[in-house]
């Protein structure tokens, strides 16, 4: 039944220095539906594929606004994500309350990572079963962080986690240059394309199963310094999905011309 004796809790090292419980928790992330995140020089975008448990049920939320300058996308146990996002919301409000400053993204990401680490070092706790992509802006510009159940965090240029996310990562790696130099709208487009790569044959992106979150630095003529986090769901997605389709047909045409 068990692979070995060293995987019953998170406080036991294997002879190779591995902690199996933590590694198993990472597997829970791979069970979740896919989310993609990417940044350019001004914006940070999250894109997610929503799942519904059954035909008549609603879709599970994939992207959560934490504060006006930050949002997260989740893959894995949604209830663990809620615990973490509530904590992030509290910390963000705390920073605005005591300093009148939106909390720096790297700091809050470190805070949840430190919490996650604690769960891997004490008996009776379990690691979080969720992976997060955190998108936000602060004084240092737009950021994208990946958070894992182990408490590992990485600042990324682009990232995808969840089921079949490898396809999305391949797309992101191939287009990294283009993504970094893209405009805001192109960035969203790249995100949706990466997400599309992960779909199985019979599926497609619809207004029901897609979620997009955007946050970034405001343009020169805008009022504030940042473009607040905006979540696109339902009918708001129509123009984004249309742009995606028209872009694809255009490419098909050019390909035909080439041949």
């Amino acid at each position, binding site marked *: 039944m068990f692979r070995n004796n060293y995987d019953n809790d998170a406080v036991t090292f294997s002879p190779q220095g591995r902690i199996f419980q933590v590694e198993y928790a990472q597997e829970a992330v791979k069970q979740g539906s896919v989310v993609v995140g990417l940044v350019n020089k001004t914006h940070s975008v999250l894109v997610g594929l929503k799942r519904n448990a059954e035909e008549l049920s609603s879709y599970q939320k994939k992207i959560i606004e934490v504060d006006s300058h930050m949002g997260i996308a989740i893959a894995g146990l949604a209830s663990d994500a809620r615990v973490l996002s509530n904590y992030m919301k509290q910390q963000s409000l705390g920073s605005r309350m005591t300093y009148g400053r939106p909390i720096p993204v790297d700091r809050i990401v470190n805070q949840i990572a430190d919490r996650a680490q604690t769960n891997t*070092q004490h008996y009776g706790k379990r690691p979080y079963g969720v992976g997060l992509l955190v998108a936000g802006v602060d004084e240092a510009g737009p950021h994208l962080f990946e958070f894992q159940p182990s408490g590992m965090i990485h600042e990324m*240029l682009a*990232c995808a986690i969840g089921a079949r996310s490898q396809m999305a990562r391949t797309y992101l790696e191939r287009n990294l240059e283009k993504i970094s130099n893209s405009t805001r709208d192109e960035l969203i487009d790249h995100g949706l394309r990466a997400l599309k790569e992960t779909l199985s044959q019979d599926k497609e992106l619809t207004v029901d199963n897609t979620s997009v979150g955007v946050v970034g630095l405001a343009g020169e003529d805008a009022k504030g310094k940042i473009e607040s986090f905006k979540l696109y769901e339902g009918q708001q997605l129509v123009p984004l999905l249309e742009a995606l389709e028209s872009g694809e047909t255009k490419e098909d045409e050019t390909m035909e011309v080439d041949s």
Partner: protein
Amino acid sequence: MTSIGTGYDLSNSVFSPDGRNFQVEYAAKAVENGGTAIGIRCKDGVVLAVEKTITSKLLKPGANNRIATVDRHVGIVTAGLVPDGRHFVSRARDEASSWRSVYKSPIPISALSNRLGSYVQAYTLYSSVRPFGVTAIVGGWDSEAELAVDGQVGSGPRSGSGGKVDGAQTGGPGLYMIEPSGLYWGYYGAATGKGRQAAKAELEKLDLSSGNLNLVDAVKEAARIIYVAHEDSKDKEFELEMSWISTLEGPTKGRHEAVPQQLLQEAERAAKRALEGDDEEEEEAKANEGEQMEE
């Protein structure tokens, strides 16, 4: 490790019949897989360097720092489980800040290392926790000047009770390495992680105890040593991260800071040149050998 699997290695804080604590040994195994980290102590400062393996093309270059600032004058680099390293650093920051609130002065590197050693050791004592999967190198500079007490106002009496001793000399560099068991030693040059063997061999060649190496040269040596230690795992790309702490008169004014970009790049170029040079020499030697054989 003949006792593996006999049940004495399944719980922390348990001795095996031959007096070993296996969970601590296993934690040390986690360290051996981590990227190489080194520290060099010279008369005019301390250098910390770490090899960051690039696990994905999608990682943001130059971000994801692995060397942490603990207090103005202290830096820590860890090898092993990165999240455990952050826990360790967070404790170090708490210790440094509580020292300041009690003594109104920066914590000496020796005192900090001592407290951290105790903290890590405590995680080997209980079955309810696991040991730290990191070995940490703590580097810092104890101010050589008489420091104003935090929050001090005015300059105080010039002589007499509470007056100052002219030319009193204190402080200096500090470099310590703390292992998962809680054991720690002070070092002239410390190395841990995957490439520690090669790095140690290189550090020993530097003759650090003589005090002839200066800080800027130590930066270059540190870069070279990380490159040498990386040789074995050549296929994987890596990023070099370095930080330093100098004397109050030196380039960082007693503070722990990242090595400036320009110097870092210079050191990396020199490191690459040194490595290529070695390869060429070896090849030449081999070629000569071949010729001799033919003869």
